[in-house]
Structures are given as structure tokens and as C-alpha cells.
């Protein structure tokens, strides 16, 4: 799917994500890391922390549902094929659990706290993802 570069929508969306991260830290003292929230939710420990994580996820999906009609580049989304979704899902789950973070936790939150660990993680997954896309789209011809 061809997408147009949308810098202003990107800046606005990024600012909203940053605000979300600040709100979660200032309000509840928590890192807005999606993989960590997901990892803890699926461990199904129904303690006091389960509720805030579930609420964040409910908000995440609801926020997407509400703003979808106004998203220039995301009223319709490209979908992976079944086999790619399964392989990719396994890798994303395994990798983020092993390194304790993803684009939001290490990328946005970690770098904003000047965490060297998160900066190294972010550079690593960025570079590997770029190489992966190069191989799948240009070497193998996707």
C-alpha cells in the first residue's frame, strides 16, 4: 500500500502519544510501554495492577475507534497475510518480552528519560527492522 508522508498529522499524533506518556507517569507513576502492559495483562494475575493496565488498553482501542474517521492515512489499514501475522506476532512478542520494551516503552518513554539501555534497544530494533524490510522487499522481492 502506498502512503503519503503526513508530517503535520505525524507531529500532532506524536504530541498526543507524548502527552499520554506524561499523563500516565504524572498520574499513576507508570511507564506507557505497550509490550510491558500487554505482557503483564496476559499473565492474568488479577491484582491491583491488572485494572489500570486493562483500562489503558480499553482506552487505546477506544481512542483508535473514535479518531479513525479523521485519520488521513489510516481509515483503512494494510493487513499482513496469515503466515506473516503468525510469524511476526511470535517474533514481536518474544523479542519485546526478552528486551523488556518496544517502540513505546524503550523508544518514546526510555529515550525521554535519557536511558542508555532504551536508546541502545531502540537503535537495535530500528536498524534490524530496516534491514528486514530491505531483504523482504528488495532482495526477495515482496
Amino acid at each position: 500500500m502506498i502512503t503519503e508522508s503526513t508530517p503535520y498529522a505525524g507531529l500532532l499524533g506524536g504530541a498526543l502519544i507524548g502527552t499520554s506518556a506524561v499523563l500516565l507517569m504524572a498520574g499513576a507513576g507508570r511507564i506507557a510501554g505497550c509490550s510491558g502492559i500487554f505482557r503483564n495483562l496476559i499473565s492474568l494475575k488479577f491484582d491491583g495492577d491488572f485494572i489500570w493496565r486493562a483500562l489503558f488498553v480499553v482506552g487505546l482501542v477506544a481512542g483508535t475507534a473514535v479518531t479513525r474517521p479523521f485519520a488521513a492515512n489510516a481509515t483503512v489499514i494494510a493487513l499482513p497475510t496469515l503466515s506473516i501475522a503468525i510469524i511476526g506476532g511470535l517474533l514481536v512478542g518474544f523479542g519485546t518480552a526478552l528486551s523488556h520494551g518496544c517502540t513505546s516503552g524503550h523508544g518514546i518513554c526510555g529515550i525521554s528519560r535519557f536511558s542508555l539501555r532504551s536508546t541502545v534497544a531502540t537503535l537495535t530494533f530500528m536498524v534490524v527492522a530496516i534491514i528486514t524490510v530491505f531483504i523482504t522487499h528488495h532482495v526477495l522481492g515482496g
Partner: protein
Amino acid sequence: MLMQRLTVLISGLLFGAGLTISGMVNPAKVINFLDFTGKFDGTLLFVFAAGVGVAMLGYYFTFKRAAPFFGKRFYLPTVFAIDSRLLIGAAIFGIGWGLTGYCPGPAIASLAYLQPISLVFLVAMAMGTLAAKLVPEE
């Protein structure tokens, strides 16, 4: 407790709105960003710059406080090591991210599009997440 939960819910709503308005919930936009030699779409860089910029500024003022407004304390990571778990994990995540264009946030948010494939991805992601528990700690 009510105020804390309300804040968390609003935080989630803003996160979902941000991912959607920026188009990051669309895996094609992410893959096109990663594709320097193809149909390059630089949007992700703007999302990242604004996200980090706002969070950096907000965190700066937040951490001047002893505790969050509606919580006991700040729960910050206690691991600082740059070890093989971090590097190998990030690299494996990078392969999955490059293959699909999905990282965990947009993958969860994409449930709003009611496409069964999102659920398939999330089930696989859950299995991958659980599998990582089998890797022994160093």
C-alpha cells in the same frame, strides 16, 4: 483511586488517538518508513520527534515531584544492563516489526478495525511473550 483510573483511561485514549491520527496504526506507513530504497514515507520520524519532545519536557517537570499525583511512587525500570537479552530481544523484535509493520501498541489499537488478522497477530504475540519466560535469566 478513581482519579488514578480516570487518568489512566485518558492516557490510553490519547495514545490510541495519537497512533491513529499519525497513521501509525496502519502497518503500511511503518513499513514504508523503514523502506529507505522504496516508497519512503517519513511520517514515523515526526511522530517520534514530537513524542520524545513532549515526553522529555513533561517527564522533566513530573520528576521534580516526589510522587505521582494519584499514586504512591514512580515505578521506573530497575534494570540498566546492556546485555545479550536486551540486544538479542531488540533484534528479534526488529525482525518481527519489519516483517509486519506492527509493534505492540498499534497491534492492540488495530483491534478497533475489527479485522480477525489483528487477533491472530495478538494471539501469536501472546505466545511469543510467554515463550520468552522459558529463557533462563543470566
